[in-house]
């Protein structure tokens, strides 16, 4: 079962990656200058107590092992700044918001991106094609936070079509989804378009045509299938882009998600939270890449048998 071997190999590598990631994150955060509590005024005795509470009085490698141990039990530690709340709790409350937003954005980017890319390829040189290319260029060059501001300003503040901030109702989701998804939409559309163009002019499509097959069959079985396969490889970077996009979009639209927490943790130097979130994001990404790799192995016969 070559496929099974491939999958287990990929899973093993992913585990290893996560372990290394955890280690690197942990030690890098330790490298950040200053100590987590320097900004706070407290008496010497309290300081020692707090240090002991957080295990900061132990040697670094011991802290590392303790951390690993906790991690293995699913415990990411306690926040330094927001007292008495564990990182797990923060993640638990914030993740649903980010997940919802992220999924909507990905869905939006995928559907519109694929649609635009495919139709642009078929309408090569015509108006829709030019429009798609222009949109793609703008989408990939204008930074997400700027897009966020502009649509917030125009559609929420000035035109008042949508609420300005927060994430309470369906109407609240529209602008953030668009801001988060635009960049990815552009990338997917561009990539799909060029993949389609390549496939449309390929020899095997000509062979299919010469066999007298129906237009529908030529398009779906021969063109779309082969053109869309490579687009799956975009899923990895798409998720990465979503994760980093939330940092900004959640800030602009005041959404209480993980991205927002990440930004505040960085600004507040909340070390455990930073570490915890970094690991969380990295694990998400590694898992996503793993899923994409496996999915691709199922779909492309050329990989299956390697």
């Amino acid at each position, binding site marked *: 079962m070559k496929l099974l071997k491939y999958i287990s190999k990929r899973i093993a590598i992913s585990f290893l990656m996560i372990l290394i990631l955890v280690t690197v994150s942990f030690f890098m955060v330790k490298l950040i200058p200053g100590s987590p509590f320097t900004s706070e005024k407290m008496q010497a005795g309290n300081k020692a107590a707090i240090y002991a509470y957080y295990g900061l009085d132990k040697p670094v490698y011991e802290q590392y092992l303790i951390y690993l141990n906790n991690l293995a039990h699913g415990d990411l530690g306690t926040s330094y700044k927001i007292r008495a709340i564990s990182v797990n709790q923060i993640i638990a409350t914030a993740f649903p918001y980010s997940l919802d937003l992220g999924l909507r954005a990905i869905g939006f980017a995928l559907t519109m991106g694929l649609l635009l890319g495919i139709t642009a390829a078929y309408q090569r040189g015509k108006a829709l094609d030019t429009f798609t290319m222009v949109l793609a260029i703008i989408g990939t*060059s204008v930074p997400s936070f700027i897009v966020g501001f502009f649509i917030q300003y125009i559609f929420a503040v000035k035109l008042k079509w949508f609420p300005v901030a927060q994430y309470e109702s369906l109407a609240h989701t529209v602008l953030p989804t668009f801001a988060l998804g635009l960049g990815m939409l552009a990338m997917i559309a561009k990539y799909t378009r060029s993949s389609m163009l390549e496939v449309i002019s390929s020899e095997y499509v000509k062979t299919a045509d010469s066999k007298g097959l129906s237009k529908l069959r030529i398009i779906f079985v021969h063109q779309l299938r082969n053109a869309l396969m490579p687009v799956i490889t975009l899923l990895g970077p798409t998720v990465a882009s979503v994760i980093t996009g939330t940092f900004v979009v959640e800030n602009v639209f005041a959404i209480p998600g993980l991205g927002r927490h990440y930004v505040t943790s960085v600004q507040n130097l909340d070390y455990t939270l930073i570490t915890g979130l970094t690991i969380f994001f990295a694990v998400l*990404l590694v898992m996503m890449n793993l899923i994409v790799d496996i999915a691709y192995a199922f779909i492309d016969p050329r990989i299956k048998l390697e």
Partner: protein
Amino acid sequence: MQNDAVGQMLDAELFTLVGVKPDEADHIKRKSQTYFQDAARRFRQNTPSVIGMIFLAALVVFAFFGPLLVKYNYNTADLAAANSDPSAAHWFGTDELGRDMWARVWTGGRISILIGIIAALLQATIGIILGSLAGFVGGKVDEFIMRVVEFLMAFPYLVWVTLMMMVTGSGILPMIMALTLTGWLSMARLVRGQILALKNEDYVLAALSLGAGTRRIILRHMIPNMLGVIIVNMTFAIPNAIFSEAFLSFIGIGIKSPETSWGLLVSIGMKQIYTYPLRLFLPSIFISLTMLSLQLIGDGLRDALDPKLRH
């Protein structure tokens, strides 16, 4: 009758031998051009790219000479003139401390663009060195370098850069360092791939069989082919660096006051979006234009330097 004779004479004339004129037969209709001449021509014909170049040139000129055009320093407060609209005295108006926005925007631009270019150059240098090492030497060295690249790519890039920034601290130099240390990955992979592919190319074999030495092969054959992709990659690396700088300054760990950059200005401006939107729009538009221009140029360069599209 006479017409007939003349007609016949003319006809006969048509049947005089012309034959082959060697230079005409071998006459290649268009002048042969070197690779770079051809690429330059194709680039010039690409309208969006040319527009991009014009925009970029304008932005760079303004960024470097803009602040010199006014007598204000970007950081000098003048509370009496605080919060004024664009006027003859202050072309972009002033901020809440009375600082001239024109000076601030263009000084910030200087820094953002400089960071972008320098970071991209350094990233490219490291990437080329490591990529060439991996490609040429191969074996364990190659594997090791590629493992590192793979691992680093597993992080979301911005998280990685943020972490790095926190370690290096804020400021221009630390930022350049952080960006460089995290951004060399794509160039390294690219260069390595190029070298691996070129090593096996037929024309390298041909050159070898004609007796060319390794150095000549690298210089005459490999580098010109790699230059194209390297330049294109660098062109796209600059807006990435600018965006990263903007993002990091925006969330507060990049450039900090009293220094200024476009990212920082956007972050400040965001808080005043309802009251003084211009302070947000100005840096935003210029960041967007810069990144847009570089994208267009990058696309144009990629198409122009693609050897397969040569005529």
